[in-house]
């Protein structure tokens, strides 16, 4: 391991985790906020712009900005072919959070899909250990 790899809070892998958690929280806030102010009869509502009248949507936007900043930092150090698939751990965390916090239903088939994503993530994550040694 060379000395030029940032450590502590600047560690790109920690920033990737921070980015992912902010995305999960923001998605839940967006769904709740957007639904609260939904006016499905308005033609303009397809643009989503009326979502901005919800305070929850603005909290979500704040989280999106934080996750975006840490994601840009991640892109400096980690190849996209590794960082992006790993960031899809949100595809596991979001449905499970929907189930826990929003009361949405997860079918058996959906749980199988979530399991497939986890296997895929494990395949992508395995070479990361070797990449770390090289960095």
């Amino acid at each position, binding site marked *: 391991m060379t000395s030029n790899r940032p450590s502590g809070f600047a560690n790109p892998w920690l920033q990737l985790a921070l980015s992912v958690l902010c995305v999960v929280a923001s998605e839940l806030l967006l769904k709740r906020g957007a639904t609260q102010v939904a006016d499905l009869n308005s033609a303009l509502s397809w643009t989503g712009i009326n979502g901005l009248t919800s305070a929850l949507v603005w909290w979500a936007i704040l989280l999106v900005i934080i996750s975006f900043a840490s994601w840009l930092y991640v*892109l400096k150090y980690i190849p996209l072919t590794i960082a992006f698939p790993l960031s899809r751990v949100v595809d596991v965390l979001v449905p499970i959070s929907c189930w826990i916090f929003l009361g949405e239903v997860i079918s058996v088939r959906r749980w199988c899909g979530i399991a497939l994503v986890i296997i895929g993530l494990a395949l992508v994550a395995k*070479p990361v250990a070797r990449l770390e040694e090289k960095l």
Partner: protein
Amino acid sequence: MTVLALVLILFALVTFVAGQIFLKHAMESTTQTAFPKSSVAIQLGAGILLMTVSFFITLGLLQRFDLSYLYPFQGLSVVIISVIAALVLKEKLSWRLMIGALLITAGVVLVSIS
């Protein structure tokens, strides 16, 4: 699921993928000692613009469909981004990474059709 909704979902996907590629290319340039600041700024701007378009389209879709149904469409972006990063950004794409990306996408698609 109307045709309009499908078109909007695909449009959000394409703008998202293009945005990521621009951002990665811009941020990678900043690790070099002497990088062209104006071209990095333009690429970052293009990336942010594309992601913003994708964001608002998604917000409109969220008002009509369950999050756990809509969101997984972005799973398709895993395979698309991995392939385009290998082609455009010349990143190494091993079989292991490709199979991992395909499994993630398969899982996400399975989630979305449930």
